[in-house]
């Protein structure tokens, strides 16, 4: 089938972001002074992409011979990824000072990884999900090692690359077996073979291999080993992008692929996924307790949060899907902000990341200390902040589906996590500063952090504003 103009219009957000990235490569050669305007140019591209995503929001359709969805679910994630991209680029404005890196390449890689995320969340076919995953992952492998003079960065990059490629092998083998049993890779056509296909051992094996591949990408225990290392070794802003965008994209495709087989009620599959969720909550929160490095602490907290989101996805009822989407939005904005604060305090690669360096932050810079405490409270799930509403929905969904043991575990591990989140706040507010390095907060950075803080507080007080959008998204399914 020849693609029509409407097909291109449907995927306009994806095309615009890729075009922005490619134009930046060309402009770098043509215009000598382009470096100064590269941030504005990228943000402009992302804003135009948001505009087209909003235009497409109402009409759900499939383009390019049923390869990609557009509208509602896809548009929702496209907008979210563009916002994450804008925040990351704003927060990276000081990056040039500390690393001898090519800023234009950095922006190009961030934009292309966002293209990958968009394709993943819009994929209607396992082929497009796989391609999106790889576009995103390959950019992340490079970005993880972007401070290439640092051995830690090289090491993080190599670990991420080897484990990521290993996981890709499992993912592909899973897709191959699914294709072999149902004869198609289109998600909707596969769904038509359920629940008969689920009784085939080979199909179930394929789904489990696919689950392993995706579990590596979202870092579910026991496939999480790379995550703390990579987050520590990568540039802090890149870690923020991986924790928010990378994870959200993987969960978006997880929902697309697994919501139907999980809803079909195959007990083996539900048991396996529940065990993964339980292990993630336990291991993430308990290992988080002993971390002294703020980036590693956030990495373990991120592992724990994948567990919480998975609880909502296993439930596969309305509550669970709405809660998962809400939590993905809140969690990604929060973690971009938390990594952003960490990046502004880090005045040299790998320095000032210890928890002791945060002591007395409220005396040095009230704004940063306040923002960081809002993010931490939201990650714990304390009522006025958005994290609480998200967790409430996820756990309520699991109770509806009779998964009470998961909920009890989730609540208990949340209490455990209180220790390491609150420890940071205690250090910031109730200790005297240990060193007197001055913190330079640029205007770009202030805008990004204020935006994240306001979003976290706003969605905590008026969650219905976001829930009405999410409810609208799931109306068609």
């Amino acid at each position, binding site marked *: 089938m020849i693609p029509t103009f409407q097909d291109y219009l449907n995927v306009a957000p994806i095309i615009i972001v890729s075009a922005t990235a490619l134009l930046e490569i060309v402009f770098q050669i043509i215009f000598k002074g382009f470096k100064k305007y590269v941030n504005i140019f990228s943000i402009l591209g992302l804003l135009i992409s948001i505009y087209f995503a909003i235009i497409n929001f109402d009409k759900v359709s499939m383009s390019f011979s049923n390869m990609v969805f557009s509208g509602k679910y896809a548009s929702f994630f496209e907008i979210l990824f563009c916002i994450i991209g804008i925040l990351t680029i704003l927060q990276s404005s000081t990056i040039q000072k500390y690393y001898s890196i090519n800023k234009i390449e950095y922006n190009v890689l961030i934009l292309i990884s966002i293209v990958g995320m968009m394709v993943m969340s819009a994929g209607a076919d396992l082929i497009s999900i796989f391609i999106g995953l790889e576009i995103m992952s390959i950019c992340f492998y490079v970005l993880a090692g972007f401070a290439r003079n640092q051995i830690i960065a090289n090491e993080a990059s190599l670990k991420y690359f080897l484990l990521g*490629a*290993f996981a890709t092998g499992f993912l592909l083998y899973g*897709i*191959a077996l699914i294709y072999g049993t149902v004869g198609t890779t289109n998600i909707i056509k596969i769904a038509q073979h359920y629940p008969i296909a689920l009784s085939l051992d080979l199909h179930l094996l394929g789904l489990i291999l696919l689950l392993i591949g995706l579990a590596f990408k979202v870092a579910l225990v026991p496939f999480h080993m790379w995550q*703390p290392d990579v987050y520590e070794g990568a540039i802090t802003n890149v870690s923020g992008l991986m924790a928010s965008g990378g994870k959200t994209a993987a969960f978006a495709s997880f929902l697309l692929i697994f919501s139907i087989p999980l809803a079909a009620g195959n007990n083996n599959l539900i048991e396996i996924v529940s065990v993964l969720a339980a292990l993630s909550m336990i291991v993430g929160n308990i290992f988080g307790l002993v971390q002294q490095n703020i980036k590693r602490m956030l990495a373990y907290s991120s592992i724990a949060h994948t567990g919480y989101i998975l609880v909502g996805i296993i439930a596969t009822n309305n509550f669970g899907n709405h809660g998962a989407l809400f939590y993905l939005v809140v969690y990604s904005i929060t973690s971009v902000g938390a990594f952003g604060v960490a990046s502004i305090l880090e005045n040299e690669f790998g320095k000032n990341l210890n928890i002791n360096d945060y002591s007395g932050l409220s005396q040095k810079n009230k704004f940063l200390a306040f923002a960081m405490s809002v993010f931490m409270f939201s990650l714990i799930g304390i009522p006025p902040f958005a994290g609480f509403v998200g967790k409430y929905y996820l756990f309520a969904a699991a109770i509806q589906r009779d998964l009470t043991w998961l909920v009890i575990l989730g609540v208990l591990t949340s209490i455990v996590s209180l220790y390491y989140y609150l420890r940071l706040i205690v250090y910031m507010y109730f200790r005297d500063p240990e060193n007197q390095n001055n913190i330079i907060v640029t205007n770009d950075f202030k805008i990004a952090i204020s935006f994240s803080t306001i979003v976290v507080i706003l969605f905590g007080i008026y969650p219905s504003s976001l829930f009405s959008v999410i409810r609208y998204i799931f109306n068609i399914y």
Partner: protein
Amino acid sequence: MIPLNYYLLFAAFLFSVGVVGVLIRRNAIIVFMCIELMLNSVNLTFIAFSAFMGNAIGQMFVFFVMTVAAAEAAVGLAIIIALFRNKKTINIDQINLLKW
């Protein structure tokens, strides 16, 4: 005609060789070669299914897998070179700055 099972078992065997290689070899380049072996065994599975079902999607998928494998090889070897410049080794056991 050779039955489908033979192809699938052979591909599964190759895949297992790849997985075991990744887990036990310590040289980053050989680990990477084992990963490529896994991807190629997946290609074999796709083509076998595709030929036996008379359905072209599997063969189309193989092209995408090969493209991605090539891109991954380019990035992966570059990462290994960057590490070698700083560390003078590509033995995975000695790459252990980041832990816990």
